[in-house]
């Protein structure tokens, strides 16, 4: 009996000793913010930069299952490229690691990824420069060269123009346009400051004798010129806005016309928008970014809080949008509306709330189930939420539901919200997508500040951390379950832009003409 008890006791001990056999998980860091410990090693090591890029994407990227289906083995990428980045560390001790060399390696690592928004910046600590890589841009340039070039002019996104239609009698019944792009807003202040300093310097240089007051002005003007040059050398829009606002405050006492503190909300994206009413009562709206909401909100609800310049700006944007919206309301009610064209060619996307001001303004209130979505929910590559409806906002004020034909005009540089609008149009019975296949970046993003809502998205801080990744936090699917990352939205009616005829905007626009043809003929 004693032996049995002994045996049982030993067995019990053996069994419980196994309780410690659970393995410990690795420590996974959150790379979304500035933190000395998190980023310290990566400041001076290419190998550590790679590890952050790899690990950050491993936890944050939202479509690993899609990449797996397309044949990517992310672990194999680590095995292959970590040694190559550590080789750069060795090389950096004896020679220089050039930006091109670093870019080439980063490109090799991320180019197989299909997310259309993905944008990577890695700092080369040998040169101090940031190299930038956009996998989908590389893919589109390579695989869709014709479409890519068709949608560009002089290295910039092609800007659809109505000059030909405006100048041709009988084409347009109404036309309104506004340029409130960030660059225009920034330039207007910089030019005002610069103009003032030049005038002062010109006037003092022509004089042999200057007063003490003029000497002070000359000193101020020279200082200002230097400061303007410093602001011009800044790289990110956020830094430029900060720089300009600092100058505007500093020199406010001079009361220089056109110099004012910029409204961050209104300048973040800026907007360039055109409304036209074509013969046949076709209401046309073109805009270069989905940033209508801040202007309309400012115009409608915050007018009294705004500075005079911002009041004027929001009023100009609101006037163009309301002209389009009101034309649709009136013409539909009198049964004269021919159709609606939403031109998102060259539109890089923007705010989801803008859906309500564009396609959502033509649909019934209560939201539009345009797509489905899936959130990242955990650090594991395949930790996702269930597929949830992606109900886009619709216009909630009193408005008509457009039953006339709707066309969304797209090209390769229709990105993100432009593509959401195109996908939305595909599930609206009276809407068609006309043009060429879009960019292929529909997964949504939030700002760094909202990282912890999904614990997914951006890696690092742009221009500040040694690695920065502009990374979506969710996956967007069409209602029939397709993920269009790296592919884009295929138009219902494919038509290319005849660039010869278009003649830099002076001639007819073959894509727009095809849209008008569909609306007027139904074919």
């Amino acid at each position, binding site marked *: 009996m004693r032996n049995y008890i002994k045996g049982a006791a030993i*067995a019990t001990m053996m069994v419980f000793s196994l309780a410690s056999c659970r393995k410990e998980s690795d420590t996974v860091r959150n790379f979304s913010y500035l933190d000395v410990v998190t980023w310290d090693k990566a400041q001076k090591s290419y190998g550590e930069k790679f590890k952050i890029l790899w690990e950050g994407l491993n936890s944050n990227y939202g479509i690993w299952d899609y990449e797996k289906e397309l044949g990517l083995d992310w672990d194999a990428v680590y095995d292959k490229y970590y040694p190559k980045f550590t080789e750069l560390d060795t090389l950096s001790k004896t020679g220089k690691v050039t930006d091109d060399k670093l870019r080439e390696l980063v490109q090799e690592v991320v180019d197989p990824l299909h997310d259309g928004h993905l944008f990577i910046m890695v700092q080369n600590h040998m040169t101090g420069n940031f190299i930038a890589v956009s996998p989908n841009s590389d893919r589109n340039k390579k695989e869709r060269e014709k479409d890519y070039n068709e949608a560009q002019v002089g290295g910039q996104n092609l800007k659809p123009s109505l000059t030909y239609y405006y100048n041709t009698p009988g084409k347009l019944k109404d036309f309104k346009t506004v340029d409130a792009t960030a660059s225009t807003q920034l330039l207007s202040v910089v030019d005002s400051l610069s103009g003032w300093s030049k005038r002062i310097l010109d006037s003092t240089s022509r004089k042999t004798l200057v007063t003490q007051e003029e000497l002070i002005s000359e000193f101020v003007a020279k200082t200002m010129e230097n400061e303007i040059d410093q602001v011009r050398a800044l790289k990110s829009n956020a830094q430029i806005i900060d720089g300009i606002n600092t100058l505007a405050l500093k020199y406010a006492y001079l009361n220089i016309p056109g110099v004012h503190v910029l409204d961050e909300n209104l300048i973040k994206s800026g907007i360039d928008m055109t409304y036209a009413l074509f013969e046949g009562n076709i209401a046309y709206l073109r805009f270069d970014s989905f940033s209508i909401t801040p202007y309309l909100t400012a115009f409608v609800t915050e007018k009294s809080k705004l500075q005079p310049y911002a009041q004027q700006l929001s009023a100009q944007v609101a006037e163009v949008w309301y002209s389009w919206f009101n034309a649709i309301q009136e013409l539909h009610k009198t049964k004269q509306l021919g159709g609606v064209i939403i031109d998102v060619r060259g539109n890089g996307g923007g705010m989801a709330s803008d859906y309500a001001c564009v396609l959502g303004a033509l649909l019934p209130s209560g939201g539009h189930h345009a797509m489905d979505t899936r959130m990242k929910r955990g*650090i594991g590559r*395949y930790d996702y939420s269930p597929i949830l409806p992606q109900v886009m906002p619709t216009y909630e004020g009193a408005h008509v539901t457009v039953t006339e034909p709707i066309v969304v005009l797209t090209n390769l540089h229709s990105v993100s919200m432009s593509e959401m609008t195109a996908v939305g149009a595909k599930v609206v019975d009276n809407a068609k997508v006309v043009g060429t296949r879009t960019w292929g970046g529909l997964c949504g993003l939030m700002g760094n500040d909202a990282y912890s809502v999904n614990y997914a998205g951006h890696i690092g801080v742009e221009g500040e951390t040694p690695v920065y990744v502009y990374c979506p936090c969710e996956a967007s699917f069409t209602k029939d379950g397709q993920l269009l990352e790296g592919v884009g939205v295929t138009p219902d009616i494919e038509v290319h832009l005849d660039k010869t005829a278009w003649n830099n905007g002076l001639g007819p626009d073959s894509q727009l003409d095809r849209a008008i043809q569909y609306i007027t003929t139904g074919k």
Partner: protein
Amino acid sequence: MRNKAFLIVAVLMMLPVGLRAQWRVGVIEGAVYNIHSQDVHYMTDFSLNGAFGLNSGISGQYSFNKWLGVRADLIFAQKNYKMSRTDLNNVDYNYLNNYLLLPVMASFSFGGDNFPLRGFANLGYYGGLWLTSHRFGTDYNVMSEKTYEFAGPVAFNQERDNRLDMGLVGGVGMELRCNKHLGVQIEARCYYSLTSQVKEYMKVKDYRYDTTIGLQAGVYYIF
């Protein structure tokens, strides 16, 4: 380690068989409470909470003598858990995971010879199969700024999900011997998984384990 433990059980089984050696079979019903262990890493407001589930099955035991037997059960058990966000109201996940478990245990019985009530303790290993997984709850879609309810099966990901479940099992309980052939048991049991619910499918190791405690009642026919 596992092989050694099996060896010990085998040795115990080969001990001299007493005169009272006998078979018994029975059915088990009960409830379990599962605690899911997972490193939340930097997701500091992820809150993992245990959840109740069902537990039922059949049981067989061969007793070598009055105090030692070997017992095997075939159990359907649920290893459920909840995931919510302490700082975000609208994220609430309830996972229902159905398992088929096969615990094989040494069963030690003790108590007075003349009492109908005897105590027992079971200790051993279990192997199991993760049969199905479902989840229901609510999640918040930041893009459309809406909360959605969801409910449905979770498809297994062959690369990630480890459907083979193994670990330790132990329990203590009491048996009321109603007559020569009928015994009623009540047992508190614990399944302690040693295999992670996720495979080592990525370089970054992220292990997830379950500890399932339960209270079950069993009715046995003793041959």
